[in-house]
């Protein structure tokens, strides 16, 4: 029986066993799933099976647990306001840093870059960030150092770069040594030894959006050849 729209079966064959994980782009509604973004449907057979929609977008929507790079825009008493690229600024308490106490405050200025994760992120409330994990350790989060270059890319490229054993990063590390912080909100921070090297890495990462693997290897070969 067809309702207004077309109902499609996710997988031909028997219904999956166990719990099915519903990833980004899909939402449960009644007995079925609704698709909320346009893109390719992906499936991971591990566990009970996971389905999600792979979509390309630049606009970030805060999600709990995501590690993002935020820019401090204001200090309001005990709380910092961070711009994370979403519809609202996120809040970050000064106590949410490793080793921070009321006496020992972190040295955060307006305009600083912070790498942290969301503890509260839903459509009804202002997002909240922290720079410690559940055990109280910073595990790489906190204030990002001086200099370097911050730029924005699409979320699809971010996911590609964060995949384990990403080729792009491996090839780039052959070129120059550099520091890299990747935020799930589309922001990347790079710092190399000199300005020139930093800008070269920035340009390559931005170009990776639309370069094929071959073109990238050629570009890197030209650079390392010189």
């Amino acid at each position, binding site marked *: 029986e067809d309702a207004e729209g077309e109902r499609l079966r996710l997988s031909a064959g028997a219904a999956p066993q166990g719990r099915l994980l519903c990833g980004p782009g899909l939402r449960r509604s009644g007995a079925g799933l609704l698709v909320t973004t346009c893109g390719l449907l992906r499936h991971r057979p591990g566990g009970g099976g996971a389905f999600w929609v792979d979509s*390309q977008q*630049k606009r970030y929507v805060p999600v709990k647990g995501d590690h993002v790079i935020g820019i401090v825009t204001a200090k309001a008493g005990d709380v910092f306001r961070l711009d994370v690229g979403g519809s609202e600024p996120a809040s970050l308490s000064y106590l949410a840093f490793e080793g921070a106490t009321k006496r020992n405050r972190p040295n955060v200025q307006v305009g600083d870059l912070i790498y942290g994760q969301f503890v509260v992120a839903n459509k009804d409330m202002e997002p909240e960030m922290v720079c410690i994990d559940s055990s109280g350790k910073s595990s790489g989060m906190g204030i990002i150092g001086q*200099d370097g270059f911050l*730029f*924005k890319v*699409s979320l699809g490229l971010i996911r590609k770069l964060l995949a384990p054993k990403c080729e792009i990063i491996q090839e780039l590390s052959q070129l120059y040594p550099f520091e890299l912080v990747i935020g799930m909100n589309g922001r990347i921070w790079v710092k190399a030894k*000199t*300005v*020139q090297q930093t800008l*070269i890495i920035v*340009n390559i990462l*931005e*170009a990776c*959006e*639309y370069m094929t693997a071959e073109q990238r290897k050629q570009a890197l070969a*030209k*650079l390392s050849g*010189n």
Partner: protein
Amino acid sequence: QVWQIRLDMHLLNHDGNITDAASIAGIVALCHFRRPDVSVQGEEVTVYTPEERDPVPLSIHHMPICVSFAFFHQGTYLLVDPTEREERVMDGLLVIAMNKHHEICTIQSSGVVMLLQDQILRCSKITAVKVAEITELIQKALENDQKARKEGRKFGFAESIPNQRITAFKMESAAVDTNDVEEQAGEIIAKADPPSEIFATPVLHTPGTAQIGEGVESSWGDLEESEKEEAVEEEGESEAAAFECEKVETEDTSTLRETKTGEPIVLSDSEEEEVVILEPQELPRKTR
């Protein structure tokens, strides 16, 4: 009874200067729109459907177009139509909306820049040129669309996007010749001395006048011709001060002197144009 029209703008993607793009999109949408034809006989108002009578365009008297200017370094540098990165670091922004009859419709200044009268006049002249070009482009596009509709060809948003090609994140590559970057960089590095370490010890010129931090260059700068001349003058003055300043015969001054002489690239961070050091002559006698 009147018509009410609502204009919704959806931003799909941008690389800065949304104001200008949005103003063009808005005015084109309004010029392109057709409303149902109406006839009024006394109190009777008849609204015709698009099938009965061709819809009529709105009465657009003029086409105001916004042009944005970004200012840097307290008004020294001016950029028309800034990109996203330029917008993030600009000091001030000036937006002028003008139509092709050179009438200014809107002028808005924001940021921390104090603008001079002749700067604003220059900007309005640039705006006039740009607006003339853009208005012509708009007219041509509207005519093409009208022709396409008349001749029965395909038209609309879907048609303006090329198929089978990914253009969403395409950027025209600016050709940057990185072939001899290393050689050029090598030359510059060979000529220049390495930047001195930041010494916190202040240089005491006279009792009450001390100097910290002179002689440190940032490697992030490019040198303009005028800045070079000023930097050279500064070098001369501070060199003189360094020589007369007996007290500081430590490594600090010697590296100071070395980096100053023969240093082709100096970025002067100092806000002041001239470095005037009070009573440099009397120092040796007094400190002894």
